[in-house]
């Protein structure tokens, strides 16, 4: 049987949206897929050497439950519906939400992004950084992890055109 291929375009650079590309890539690789992730625009954040700075924002994100990862169960069950205008004006609100989210992630036995990325790399998932957006955002190759390629849209299509599954995330 010919090896299946998964092509992913990663375009988001927040903690929550860092999960789908790495979960799907690492799992597909474990299932025997050949996988490439093309990181462009904010998705480049996923290839930075240090991903510990990725944040999640509840601002303007009505789908995100805001629950506390500590305390008694009744307290954990409360969904803190904070109005956007307050979220936008409280300094450090995003950082606080990120700390709480990371705690929730740890409490649930969910892997960290760094861990999932490492597992993806071990499984030979290939990462490609979009050269144009690297330059557009003023990044340098030294900002990114080793072992990745720098290329453009045509290079992505070379692989994606032959892929069995192609996802835009």
């Amino acid at each position: 049987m010919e090896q299946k291929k998964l092509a992913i375009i990663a375009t988001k650079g927040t903690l929550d949206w860092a999960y789908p590309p790495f979960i799907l890539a690492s799992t597909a690789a474990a299932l025997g897929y050949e996988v490439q992730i093309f990181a462009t625009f904010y998705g480049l954040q996923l290839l930075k050497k240090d991903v510990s700075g990725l944040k999640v924002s509840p601002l303007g994100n009505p789908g995100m439950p805001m629950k506390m990862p500590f305390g008694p169960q009744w307290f954990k069950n409360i969904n803190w519906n904070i109005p956007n205008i307050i979220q936008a004006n409280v300094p450090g609100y995003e950082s606080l939400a990120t700390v709480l989210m990371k705690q929730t992630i740890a409490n649930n036995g969910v892997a960290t992004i760094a861990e999932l990325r490492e597992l993806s790399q071990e499984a030979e998932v290939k990462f490609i950084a979009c050269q144009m957006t690297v330059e557009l955002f003023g990044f340098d190759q030294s900002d990114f992890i080793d072992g990745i390629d720098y290329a453009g849209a045509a290079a992505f299509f070379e692989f994606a055109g032959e892929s069995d599954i192609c996802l835009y995330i």
Partner: protein
Amino acid sequence: MADFDEELDASGLNCPLPILRAKKALTGMEAGKVLHIIATDPGSVKDFEAFAKQTGNELMESSEEGGKFHFLMKKS
């Protein structure tokens, strides 16, 4: 439960870690050897079925006992 050669305790780990750890453990094993996986993630029941189907490794047994899920997987 049937005999097994190696054991992997993935208790407390959530998707996709049990699958990734199992894949890693199987990679280091010889064909025909059996891996016993213990998991607490309820999603792992369907996931290990799908993993077996797609990788050709045989899921010999899948059971639940005291809130833990047990899988026996034979390396292909």
